[in-house]
């Protein structure tokens, strides 16, 4: 279980994380979404005790992370896949950590197999690794201690599409067996396919927070009409805000039933009317995070 309570972090006069609260329950995957620089990494660093919050507090498995006796055995963390000693071989990077947390050295090989780093790759020094390989090494590192909680910062970054799909399967499986997962991303679709819960952060503040279904439900209605101008006029007259979805349709912040009624009253023939679904979530994400960009 992961809990952030009013986490706040300032660097100088800039507040990079501002009153961030959320919970991740066992058995769920929580997607932590936000554009680059939104405060995702800083929040995660406070969760695992690398950075001290200026206000609020963080708990992992019921207490501060730094009070876990041997945290590597309970919490798997991947913060920055490129942060590995460039002169160390991939296998050795895992073996050192295994020794540090008291994990059987044989587990290193099974994790290398799991993430698809073959013998030749494992023997290479990390400086020769591509970002994708570093990411796989980082995921192996996070799983090394047989943790029950995973905190992963942009784990899909640099993975190819099959790699991304594989990672989603691993995380889904991990959560289905009772694990808690928090993963961040700046790309909605990476998170949308795997997360049960979504936390959207922009400019250091939580912009939206809830189950995927809740967020989708609140994401509005997608509507199309042959006469788009008439539709916009009818919606405006009814006081419903609408915007183009960039694909010939309009996303309206209202329930489909209300939109249908407005169209009927305005005498506009609709060609499409539905909950906006993922397109709306995308729009929501975009609005919430970049709408007020400086």
């Amino acid at each position, binding site marked *: 279980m992961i809990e952030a309570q009013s986490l706040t972090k300032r660097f100088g006069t800039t507040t990079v994380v501002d009153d961030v609260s959320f919970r991740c329950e066992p058995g769920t995957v929580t997607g932590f979404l936000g554009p680059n620089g939104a405060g995702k990494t800083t929040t995660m660093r406070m969760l695992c005790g690398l950075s001290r919050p200026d206000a609020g507090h963080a708990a992992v498995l019921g207490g501060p992370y730094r009070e876990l006796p*041997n945290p590597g055995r309970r919490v798997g963390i991947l913060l920055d896949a490129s942060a590995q000693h460039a002169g160390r071989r991939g296998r050795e990077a895992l073996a050192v950590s295994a020794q540090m947390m008291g994990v059987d050295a044989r587990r290193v090989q099974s994790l290398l197999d799991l993430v698809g780093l073959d013998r030749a790759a494992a023997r290479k020094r990390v400086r020769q690794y591509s970002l994708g390989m570093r990411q796989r090494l980082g995921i192996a590192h996070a799983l090394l201690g047989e943790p029950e909680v995973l905190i992963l910062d942009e784990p899909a970054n640099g993975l190819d599409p099959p790699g991304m799909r594989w990672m989603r399967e691993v995380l889904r499986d991990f959560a289905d067996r009772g694990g808690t997962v928090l993963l961040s991303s700046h790309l909605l679709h990476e998170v949308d396919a795997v997360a049960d819960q979504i936390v959207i952060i922009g400019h250091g503040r939580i912009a939206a927070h809830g189950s995927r279904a809740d967020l989708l439900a609140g994401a509005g209605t997608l509507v199309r009409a042959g006469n788009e101008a008439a539709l916009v006029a009818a919606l405006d007259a009814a006081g419903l805000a609408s915007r183009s979805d960039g694909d010939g349709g309009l996303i309206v912040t209202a329930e489909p039933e209300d939109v249908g009624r407005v169209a009927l009253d305005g005498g506009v023939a609709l060609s499409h009317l539905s909950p906006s679904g993922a397109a709306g979530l995308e729009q929501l994400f975009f609005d919430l995070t970049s709408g007020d960009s400086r």
Partner: protein
Amino acid sequence: MSTHAAALDIPIAGTKADRRPGMGRLTAVELRKMVDTRAGFWLQFAVVTLTVAVVVVVGIVGHAQDHTLRQMLSAALAPASILLPIVGILLVSSEWSQRTAPITFVLVPNRARVLAAKVAASVVLSLVAFVFCLAVAAIATAITAPGVEHTWSLPAGLLGQSLLSLATGMIGGVAFGAALLSSAPAIVLSFALPIALGALGSIPALEGAARWLDGGRSLTPLTEHLMSSTEWARAGTTLALWMVLPLVIGLWRILRNEVA
């Protein structure tokens, strides 16, 4: 990459092996980190080969009175006493320059324990290096068989002082690495500072202070002869300034630093 996530067999929610890693294990990990990177490996390799090379050269070109165990040991220790401080610096600073510090501190959140393990590992490595140098010096003495008086004479106290000199030098490296948290400045400073202090000490007005604060003066007796109490006081003062103080500054920086 495995296509089936089922290949992942992780028991979840078992509280297993959730005991704090002991200092012995952390020290062993730090020793491992000294040799398992490319830079670390070649530094250790250089210590070994240079030690042998120096002793061979002294054995070939030196006079018989240079071939006593005491002289051979002094020669054999030269490469280690220059290179081990660099190993010590890198042991700390590379965690920052190579950005492994987050990994280390996520696994061992008590950062003071990590620094303590690095100091302990430095003592162990110094001891291993010292025994190696002593063995090389003894073999060289046996082979050259100078046949002069006191060939094998070496006071135990001097052995201890030489080991102390080697170990404090390496811990000084750890201290510089911790205080600066950056490899290049720490290495440059650890070479430039003794030269600068030596130069300052040659100014007559500063000579008195230099006897107490310049390692080039106060620490050299460690390897030369059994020291008097004044000499111990001077060496202690120098170590307090150039080893203990940077270590304290380093500890403070590591404890309060945001680790990125």
